[in-house]
């Protein structure tokens, strides 16, 4: 039987890519030693053909790992300094390593972990590989095609910029996230929650407050931010005020909706005990509303970050993530802008992730969490 027919499709595609690359040699006009070129081909061929050996999963994974990341490392070090000179062979070989990595992820996803720590490790490895390859392909395309760094810097350059600007970035995070975002987020969520309870308790407030809350949420941030600067000054309180305005309404609406989530029989039960308003609220309606409230907390974590950064465009002391982005764009220091974006993305993910973990712990009983 034809051995090619036994190969998974990623391996076949990687082989084809390697053949295309052979036709398109050299990889770089003057960028790579013949020895490196030969090693790249050798690794790609190994990676493409290793499924034929039917090795144990662990061994096969190691071979695939080396065969995917070795070539891409050699290729990327070769292209650095020779941006824009890449030909067909370069891209074909990057594609081949990527396909081998794909094969690796497939093998790992099918693997049956033998122990709990192994299982956890496997669950982490797959998304990590996914993220790493996103960056590798970004790097290869930007450098290979010679895209001007001012349009899109390669991730390695952004990484270097982050490493070299740690004190500045730390000061910006301190100003924007630990002061503006956190203060505004807690005040906004607390205010939204309290008003929701008041609106629930007193019907006339519900009639009067909900439309006003609605209107506040519709205020455009670029109009509000300068006014807040006039009211609260240049420093973080004015940014926190913008965040309060942005986070207030989602919390209000979600809490009001959540307070109606308890079933009628569960409420009747409280009524048969002649439970008071606050007892019913505390023991029934708030627990039932928890999934809604966490929904608002998660939405607001993102809104707060956006609000604080954008608000800094409208006057701020000389520190802060939004301030940095707006000034560095003006100076054409695009890598610094990207560094701030990367830090903001990381901070936002951590914020969201922590909230999601707390949510799982608090609403463990909800069908969407316990899975049934």
């Amino acid at each position, binding site marked *: 039987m034809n051995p090619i027919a036994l190969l998974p499709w990623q391996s076949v595609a990687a082989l084809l890519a390697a053949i295309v690359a052979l036709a398109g040699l050299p990889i770089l006009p003057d960028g790579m030693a013949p020895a490196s070129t030969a090693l790249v081909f050798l690794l790609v061929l190994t990676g493409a053909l290793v499924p034929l050996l039917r090795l144990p999963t662990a061994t096969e994974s190691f071979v695939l790992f080396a065969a995917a990341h070795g070539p891409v490392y050699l290729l990327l070090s070769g292209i650095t300094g020779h941006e824009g000179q890449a030909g067909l062979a370069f891209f074909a070989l990057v594609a081949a390593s990527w396909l081998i990595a794909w094969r690796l992820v497939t093998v790992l996803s099918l693997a049956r972990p033998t122990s709990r720590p192994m299982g956890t490790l496997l669950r982490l490895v797959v998304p990590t590989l996914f993220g790493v390859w996103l960056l590798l392909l970004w790097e290869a395309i930007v450098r290979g095609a010679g895209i001007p760094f001012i349009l899109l810097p390669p991730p390695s350059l952004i990484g270097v910029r982050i490493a070299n600007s740690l004190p500045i970035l730390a000061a910006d995070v301190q100003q924007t996230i630990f002061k503006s975002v956190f203060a505004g987020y807690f005040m906004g969520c607390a205010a939204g929650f309290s008003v929701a309870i008041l609106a629930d308790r007193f019907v006339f407030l519900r009639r009067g407050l909900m439309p006003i809350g609605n209107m506040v949420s519709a205020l455009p941030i670029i109009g509000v931010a300068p006014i807040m600067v006039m009211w609260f000054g240049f420093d973080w309180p004015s940014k926190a005020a913008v965040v309060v305005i942005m986070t207030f309404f989602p919390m209000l609406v979600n809490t009001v909706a959540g307070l109606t989530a308890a*079933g009628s*029989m*569960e409420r*009747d*039960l*409280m*009524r*048969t*005990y*002649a*439970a008071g308003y606050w*007892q019913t609220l505390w*023991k*029934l309606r708030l*627990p039932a509303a*928890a999934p809604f409230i966490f929904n608002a907390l998660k939405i607001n974590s993102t809104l707060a970050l956006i609000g604080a950064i954008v608000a800094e465009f409208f006057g701020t002391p000389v520190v802060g993530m939004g301030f940095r982005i707006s000034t560095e764009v003006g100076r054409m220091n695009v890598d610094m802008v990207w560094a701030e974006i990367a830090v903001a993305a990381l901070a936002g993910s951590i914020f969201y992730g922590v909230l999601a973990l707390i949510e799982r712990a608090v*609403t*463990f*009983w*909800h069908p969407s969490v*316990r899975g*049934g």
Partner: protein
Amino acid sequence: MISAKGLDLTFQTGDGPVHALSNVDLEIGKGEFVSFIGPSGCGKTTFLRVIADLEQPTGGAITVNGMSPQEARRRRAYGYVFQAAALYPWRTIEKNVALPLEIMGISAAEQRERVKRTLDLVNLTGFGKKFPWQLSGGMQQRASIARALAFDADLLLMDEPFGALDEIVRDHLNEQLLELWARTNKTICFVTHSIPEAVYLSTKIVVMSPRPGRVTDVINSTLPKERPLDIRESTEFLAIAHRVREGLRAGQSYED
């Protein structure tokens, strides 16, 4: 204990009024065990809910313990077992049973003691730390009965509490319920669809019929208070069961 005179209840719904209770007259004495039986939709749940002040009658008068239903509810005069278990999923079984005790401000030690006793009573010993969704439907229903028994109300309103249980568990709980009733002298209003269950448990059987919901027959049981399970084969038992069945059939024939 409960006295209803000319009780009327009409629900106003989107497609016209629904006459759920019509001219219901009923006297329930203290310490009685009253079963309500009748086809689906004849107003059994509605009548229990009126007693519990969860529904307001649109006509007639009703007193519970000589008070208005609202006052009786405020004084926590009754425990109510709903047609579904209605346990709170974020509380363990123990905590669910303790819920009324928490609300009534009973001390923690006393709570623990009562929770343990009532869980033993419904055969849920050892399941206190589980969450409701980890238990079978029948176990959940038993937990909800334990919750209604946890605080010692004189009146128990039970809406098809054993509907979801298998025959064996049902027999066992029927016996337990009778024993509890004999021991505590509670008044029990019990909705069921099972004729043998109604006859076995009750001192008084109320037969109802639908559209509009009304009482068609009230049967005072002649069975002794002491009732072993095999009383269900006695001729006296079968005679009462026969009369209940006749009552149900008569209610049915009104519709044709």
